[in-house]
């Protein structure tokens, strides 16, 4: 791969510095939630879950469970209804989402009761003895069926399974379609899949009756907007609810932001039993009832001229959020609002976004949040356009790309693409893949009766979501009411301090899930302070009582590489300014004649005395008399970085839904076995533009992981349900996750367009190819089977399904 190097003065940024975390993690010395006994005398919870997809709860028989030795309490949905409130949801429909089922169970696996006992074994024995009396009701799992008038209704208070609908219009789509020379329509289905992080959810809660503080230890990494939501549910003031996150989290990919209902449930269990309670989710619970992305039915229309210029598009979406809509949904529709148009120039767009509730497990962000869906559809349409016009798929895209000179680029939906050179990145992918040669190979293969295909997919890769996008779900008239409070923001903080020996401590308000924040931060601070990464100690635990944080804080939405690193750099710069001011006082020189260079404060010009950080630190800490008048003692600086481009959604539904926007260009070659329908990936090239790359090795790891994740959605992973809403994929024997054996060789290259919005020029890269691989695989397989007229519009593509399509096509 080509490694971008850092800019002037960047000695460590841009280098593949070895991860300081790895020795600890690979030798089993990590501290995860399950390793973490923060308090003594812990009791253990087992959750009783609904075996029905849809059932009214008539009552509970708890005597047998309570009588089991070692059981300290059983909490039911009735207790939850009495002692907590439902969570606020992001839509106006009156959906009452409690942390456990209170009136009805609405999906298999929904919590209906919690047993607390002295061990998990006893708790599970007792959970089997809890008798819940149900009246089973008819279930519905398909989002289109759920909207039919005779479909079972999940929420009587809502009266329909439609949780939300917004029709967004940008430009004049009707005119674009009237003026079009080519109009294409297609239906797509995107599967329900998650992330299956190696570490499942874990919560430890202690509700202290004396000081009224509920302390929760969990592997929750944000967004910390969930903190006030949970406090409200528990009836606690926010300064009585303390979230602590242990140093290590074993992966999240968005999934762990949906731990918050369990935080509330375990906290309630602690309150009602009076003991500290620990709950570790097991894998079956995770697959049944944690969180996944939505399955979606999409109807797409594309209007274009004969030369391939796209004039406009129409999206009609039905996003299936399962039994309850919950925050941050319907982000499944609106998180990419600013980048709805992807990398293309067209100005006219209509989006009809429906959020539907059915008897399936609930949803939330899953790596690439909603972008895998978006680009699977858009890139499928671009290939159809190419095929219809007899154009090469690369060429049709080139004709529609936003040109390099157009940045910063305001999209018709309100996005502000900060930087990029999309044509250059596409060209790089074409060169790296030796695209023309692949096409020649394809011609030879086709002549021999083989199914060889080449796929292309492009994506704008949004990072650091602006939480203001969530309000796109609400009607502009609702948002215009005086009592409505607008929302916006993308904020993180960091503190850098120097000890009396001149060593540096960087304290973050985020907890990584394996991304290597300690390494990255040490690189940044070492560059800023002219030291070496080994001399920087990074503390990346989170504690809402001691860290500086805000509503949007957290490690999600590919934020750290952009907003977290910015806070670190700014804190270091603030500290440097203080060191310069202090040295100027010691030298009796004007501060503007000095600069911080190579780990010391020196005169800008000429020779003269210099003061090293170590020297200054010793003096400042040991002798405060040496400080200039008015200077605050101590050598630390805290910076809170926020993007000023993160604005609330406007009256025309335009919103800059993210803050930095990268780019991805991918090309894949596949061959389909005509006998078994097995898909073999022969070539896979991915080019990324994420601005300044701080650590190329870590970036490469993110791209590998993202690609494998996308491959899961394309070929393997789907949470499947039967018509009665029973989950058919509750173990790893049936829910197939791609492994190293399934990984193709990945060829990676970068184009670097530094972000003008961040001090280091960096953007997020954590979701990366998870959002393009579903599209590029589908396009490559469609291309391979084009001689049979087969187009892939539904994922995952399993050999069995593909074989049936091939058989059918051969017959007709």
């Amino acid at each position, binding site marked *: 791969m080509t490694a971008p190097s850092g800019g002037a003065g960047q000695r460590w940024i841009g280098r593949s510095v070895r991860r300081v975390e790895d020795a600890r993690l690979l030798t089993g010395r990590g501290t995860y939630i399950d390793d973490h006994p923060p308090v003594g005398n812990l009791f253990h919870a087992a959750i009783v879950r609904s075996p029905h997809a849809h059932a009214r709860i008539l009552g509970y028989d708890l005597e047998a469970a309570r009588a089991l030795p070692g059981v300290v309490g059983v909490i039911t949905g009735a207790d939850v209804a009495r002692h907590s409130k439902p969570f606020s949801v992001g839509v106006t429909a009156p959906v009452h989402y409690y942390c456990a089922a209170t009136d009805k169970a609405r999906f298999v696996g929904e919590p209906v009761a919690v047993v607390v006992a002295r061990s998990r074994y006893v708790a599970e024995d007792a959970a089997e003895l809890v008798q819940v009396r149900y009246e089973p009701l008819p279930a519905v799992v398909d989002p289109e069926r759920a909207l039919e008038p005779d479909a079972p209704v999940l929420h009587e208070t809502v009266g329909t399974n439609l949780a939300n609908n917004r029709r967004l219009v940008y430009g004049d789509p009707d005119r674009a379609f009237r003026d079009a020379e080519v109009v294409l329509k297609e239906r797509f289905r995107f599967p329900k899949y998650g992330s299956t992080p190696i570490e499942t959810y874990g919560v430890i809660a202690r509700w202290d009756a004396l000081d009224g503080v509920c302390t929760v230890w969990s592997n929750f990494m944000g967004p910390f907007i969930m903190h006030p939501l949970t406090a409200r549910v528990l009836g606690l003031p926010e300064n009585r609810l303390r979230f602590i996150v242990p140093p290590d989290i074993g992966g999240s990919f968005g999934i762990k932001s949906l731990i918050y209902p369990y935080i509330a449930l375990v906290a309630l269990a602690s309150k009602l039993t009076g003991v500290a309670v620990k709950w570790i989710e097991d894998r079956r619970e995770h697959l049944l009832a944690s969180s996944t992305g939505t399955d979606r039915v999409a109807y797409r229309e594309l209007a274009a001229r004969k030369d391939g210029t796209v004039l406009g598009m129409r999206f009609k979406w039905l996003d299936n959020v399962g039994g309850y809509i919950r925050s941050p949904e319907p982000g499944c529709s609106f998180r990419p609002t600013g980048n709805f148009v992807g990398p293309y120039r067209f100005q006219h767009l209509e989006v009809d976004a429906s959020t539907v509730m059915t008897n399936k497990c609930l949803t939330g962000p899953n790596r690439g949040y909603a972008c895998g869906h978006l680009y699977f559809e858009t890139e499928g349409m671009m290939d159809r356009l190419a095929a219809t016009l007899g154009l090469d798929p690369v060429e049709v895209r080139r004709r529609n790309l936003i040109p390099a000179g157009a940045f910063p680029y305001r999209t018709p939906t309100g996005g502000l693409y900060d930087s990029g050179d999309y044509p250059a990145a596409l060209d790089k992918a074409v060169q790296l893949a030796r695209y023309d040669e692949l096409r020649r190979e394809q011609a030879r293969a086709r002549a021999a009766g083989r199914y060889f295909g080449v796929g292309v997919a492009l994506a704008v890769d949004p990072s650091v979501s602006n939480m203001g996008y969530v309000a796109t779900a609400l009607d502009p008239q609702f948002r215009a009411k005086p009592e409505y409070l607008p929302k916006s923001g993308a904020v993180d903080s960091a503190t850098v301090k120097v000890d009396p020996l001149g060593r540096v401590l960087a304290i973050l308000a985020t907890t990584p899930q394996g991304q290597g924040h300690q390494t990255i931060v040490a690189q940044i601070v070492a560059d800023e302070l002219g030291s070496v990464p080994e001399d920087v100690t990074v503390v990346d635990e989170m504690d809402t009582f001691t860290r500086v944080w805000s509503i949007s804080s957290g490690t999600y939405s590919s934020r750290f590489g952009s907003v977290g690193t910015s806070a670190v750099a700014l804190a270091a710069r603030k500290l440097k300014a203080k060191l310069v001011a202090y040295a100027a006082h010691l030298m009796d020189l004007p501060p503007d004649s000095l600069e911080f260079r190579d780990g010391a404060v020196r005169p800008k010009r000429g020779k003269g005395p210099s003061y090293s950080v170590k020297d200054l630190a010793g003096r400042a800490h040991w002798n405060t008399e040496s400080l200039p008048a008015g200077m605050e003692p101590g050598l630390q600086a805290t910076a809170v970085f926020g993007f000023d481009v993160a604005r609330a959604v406007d009256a025309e539904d335009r919103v800059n839904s993210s803050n930095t926007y990268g780019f991805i260009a991918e090309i894949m070659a596949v061959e389909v076995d005509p006998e*078994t329908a097995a898909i073999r990936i022969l070539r896979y090239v991915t080019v990324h533009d994420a601005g300044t790359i701080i650590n190329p090795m870590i970036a490469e790891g993110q791209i590998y992981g993202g690609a494998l994740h996308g491959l899961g959605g394309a070929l393997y992973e789907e949470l499947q349900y039967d018509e009665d809403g029973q989950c058919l994929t509750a173990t790893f024997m049936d829910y197939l996750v791609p492994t190293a054996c399934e990984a193709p060789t990945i060829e990676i290259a970068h184009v670097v367009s530094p972000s003008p919005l961040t001090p280091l020029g960096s953007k997020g890269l954590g979701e990366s190819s998870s959002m393009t691989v579903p599209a590029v695989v589908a396009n490559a397989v469609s291309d391979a089977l084009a001689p049979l007229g087969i187009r892939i519009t539904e994922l995952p593509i399993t050999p069995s399904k593909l074989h049936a399509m091939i058989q059918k096509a051969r017959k007709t």
Partner: protein
Amino acid sequence: MKPPKFDYHAPTTVDEALALLGRYGGDAKLLAGGQSLMPLLNFRLSRPAALVDLNRIPSLAWVREADGQVRFGAMTRQRTIEFSPVVKARVPLLAEATRWVAHLPIRTRGTIGGSIAHADPSAEYPAVLTALEGEVVARGPRGERVIGAKDLFKTYLTTSLEPDEILVEVHLPATPAGAGSALEEFARRQGDFAIVAIACVVARQGERCTLARLATAGTGPVPLRLRAAEEILERDGLGAEALDAAARRAAELVSPDADIHASADYRRHLTGVLTRRALTRALGVARG
């Protein structure tokens, strides 16, 4: 996912183990490699009163040749079999099949006896036992008996072993010199149970087929011997047309079930495709 309470015993001899089985009267489970039983316990799908752990019985793990067979103690690990020179030389089909069994850590624990006694019809070893007309030795309170492959597998996860018996040995006939063998498997991922697998042995004299053995995994409740397809080869020889005909016949012989991974039609189709591929590859290494 914690198992309900059970007693645990770790005998050091087969006789002790048999006595324990007798004591629990059918309510004890034998623990071999644990790769299938432990999940069943943790999911509470199996609730035995006791586990009798065979891992501390040294006399159950060995490989040796005798009477034209390669014989295995039931607790021989799959990992041992994978690297056994005797297996490679005398029953290459088993060596090849072993590489298809799950992943390295699983093969390190998994045993030949455990895999066969578990009788998962999508697993490789039951198909190999069936193709090779192997047999197992069961020991119980009434002594030892030998059970042939065709009498062993009854239906999904069910064998003709009695609850008070222990499968102690597996016997596989050595492959005749010059014969070729192959195992073709289709799974969605490396290491998964087969959607369909075909185990095959062929011996030839010129174009004449002197021996044909075909057995399936993944096509129904038990591994299936495809005798009618073998007969086509034994009758019509090893020309391309005969191989095609045998493959077509193989597909007709199975009546697989559908599941979330594959339709019945697709499994039937794969049976034909993989039979043809297995025969082609086995013939490629056969001499004579």
